[in-house]
């Protein structure tokens, strides 16, 4: 694993499932702690999984580019496409654009049918390059 999940993500039960095309796929098991309306996944938990997958994708790309950076969220917009059922939910992020300061990331979540997303998100993340990494690069 080239990235570390946040304490929040670990507490909610998010784990890395596998890699798809070189990008990490994360999984959120369906447990009582993520339930919203009875029998469905809470929108906040879905959002948490989407954001975590977005960060995982960005960490992976930064790693490949040899960059170390502190990440700070700028914003996230989540679209809920269908009610999530009581089953594991998967998510993958793709970095649409990585600049020096800002990364724009698209994220998709699905359940049993990979081709039927239950939610999507677009995120902007601020990257603050670690000064020691800058020195090493310079």
């Amino acid at each position, binding site marked *: 694993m080239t990235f570390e999940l946040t304490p929040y993500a670990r*507490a909610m039960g998010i784990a890395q499932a596998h890699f798809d095309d070189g990008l990490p796929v994360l999984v959120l098991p369906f447990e009582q702690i993520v*339930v919203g309306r009875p029998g469905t996944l809470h*929108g*906040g938990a879905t959002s*948490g999984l989407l954001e975590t997958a977005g960060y995982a994708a960005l960490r992976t790309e930064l790693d490949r580019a040899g960059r170390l950076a502190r990440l700070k969220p700028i*914003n*996230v*917009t989540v679209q809920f496409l269908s*009610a999530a059922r009581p089953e594991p939910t998967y998510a993958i992020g793709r970095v649409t654009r990585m600049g020096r300061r800002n990364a724009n990331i698209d994220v998709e979540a699905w359940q049993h049918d990979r081709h039927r997303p239950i939610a999507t998100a677009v995120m902007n993340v601020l990257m603050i390059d670690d000064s020691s990494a800058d020195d090493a690069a310079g």
Partner: protein
Amino acid sequence: MDERPTFAADGFDVARAAALMLAQGHAGWLGLRYHAHGPDWAELELPWRADLIGEDARQVLASGPIVSLMDMASGMSVWIKMGAFKAIATLDLRVDYVRPARPGHAVIGRVECYRVTRSAAFVRGMAHDGDPGDPVAHVAGCFMAIMGMRLP
């Protein structure tokens, strides 16, 4: 003439509904607490907790639980505005993180439902960690009636 209907909040017992909804599932796990409400708004609190932080090195609440807080407060503001509990689903939610919350601080989220139509409800709100004049996040979202229901 403005044909928008108005609703009494009498039909929806906010404190009782909050106690039920916040006691279980994801909201219960996060420990969300009811704070206050008005004719078209709800305020909830997300207490600080060590396992909800976003970075191992900093004692700051992660962004994920703040989205959950704002989603719950959004739903409650819609029910309060309608004066009734109806099945609704979040269509979209945008969160702008204007600054990180302070280490060890709870986050308070207040959301206002500023418009309800037959099929959609629109909300906006903000989150702060002690001073409402210095927010940590702003949100905007849209909810839809589900299960064949109509709003209001």
